[in-house]
């Protein structure tokens, strides 16, 4: 093997960059989708309407008790069956991430919503605002403000989790690094570099 040669990284920058782009795009879309869906789930859970909150609670508990890699597989094989045609690794992985992350985000957002004083809802109600107006203008802005640190943490975890998409043969950053590591015989250099990027 000889000594370390980090030139392998600069030599393969375009390939690495393409992998990183896929990871970043997947992460960003999954965060956005996960937060939107997670907010809906959190509102359902807190709605006080039994069927809605029961559905949300079951969904969250089911997804959280299943490994992510299994969810990725589910959607890779199930979504084509449902829509009647193959949709490709990227979209099935994206759907899987959104559905999976929504469960985690909904728990974070639920805690965020509960951190907003009940009096704030009273104040909105007393002014004649509707339920959705109160959520949109009064509760959620304050909830998200309280949640920013933990949302960022969850986003980083999600970025790291995107490395699992190798199972549906997507070339994300981790897959690309690993391909280069094997073809160039520079395992140590590439995995050190990958570790630095993910941290």
């Amino acid at each position, binding site marked *: 093997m000889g000594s370390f040669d980090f030139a392998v990284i600069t030599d393969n920058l375009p390939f690495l960059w393409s992998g990183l782009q896929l990871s970043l795009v997947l992460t960003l879309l999954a965060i956005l989708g996960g937060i939107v869906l997670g907010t809906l789930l959190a509102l359902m859970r807190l709605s006080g309407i039994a069927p809605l909150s029961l559905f949300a609670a079951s969904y969250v508990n089911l997804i959280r008790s299943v490994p992510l890699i299994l969810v990725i597989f589910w959607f890779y094989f199930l979504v084509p069956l449902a829509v009647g045609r193959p949709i490709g690794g990227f979209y099935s992985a994206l759907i899987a991430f959104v559905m999976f992350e929504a469960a985690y985000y909904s728990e974070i957002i639920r805690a965020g919503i509960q951190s907003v004083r009940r009096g704030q809802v*009273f104040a909105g109600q*007393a002014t004649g605002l509707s339920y959705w107006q109160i959520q949109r203008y009064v509760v959620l802005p304050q909830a998200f403000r309280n949640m920013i640190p933990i949302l960022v943490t969850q986003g980083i975890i999600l970025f790291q989790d995107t490395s699992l998409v190798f199972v549906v043969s997507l070339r994300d950053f981790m897959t690309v690094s690993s391909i280069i590591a094997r073809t160039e015989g520079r395992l140590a250099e590439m995995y050190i570099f990958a570790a630095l990027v993910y941290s």
Partner: protein
Amino acid sequence: MITIDQISKWYGDFHVLRDCTTKVEKGEVVVVCGPSGSGKSTLIKCVNGLEPVQQGQITVEGTEVTAKRTNLTKLRARIGMVFQHFELYPHMSVRDNICLGQQKVLNRSREEAIGKAEALLERVGLAEHIDKHPGALSGGQQQRVAITRALAMDPIAMLFDEPTSALDPEMINEVLDVMVELAQDGMTMMVVTHEMGFARKVADRVVFMDDGAIVEDRKTEDFFGNPKSPRAQDFLSKILNH
């Protein structure tokens, strides 16, 4: 204008309101007082349906608050409410606090809403604070903004839930002054408070509650001059000797 007819309410097994009956006429100021835990705040929150009741009937200007089919959102837009802990929206400027309901509920234009906010803030002496966030204001100032926010909706009546209880003593008067002025302008008001000076000055009637029940409902001078129940006599002797 506000009629409360034999209402009862429970939290689980706890009987918070027992068969309460009273009313507030148009232009009248009614003060609700009593020891803490007697149900005053709960009673006033029932008037605009923030708290549901299990028995009895509440009507505001002919609209039955307690009926299932009533559009509470619409009704609440017409009744102003001021809370013990102000409940201004901390993430919005004073201006946006006062404009939100006007724009979203009354569909006023932004310009019209701001105009109204400026005029009302001027009246309560806070015009120069319109750009600030609530956190930058003192408690007394925040409560005056909260009153302004409620008044901006042109309410037919105002409910005050212990508006001065969370304030430092030196700030109580600036809030009470605004309320006195409002009362003298003929606003219909229902006020839960321990400020007996305020009650004496502007209240037409005093409702005294104890243990979830309305014990006395009298003209102000009768209540202070000649309280009938031992419980009210005891309450007054404690609160007035300081």
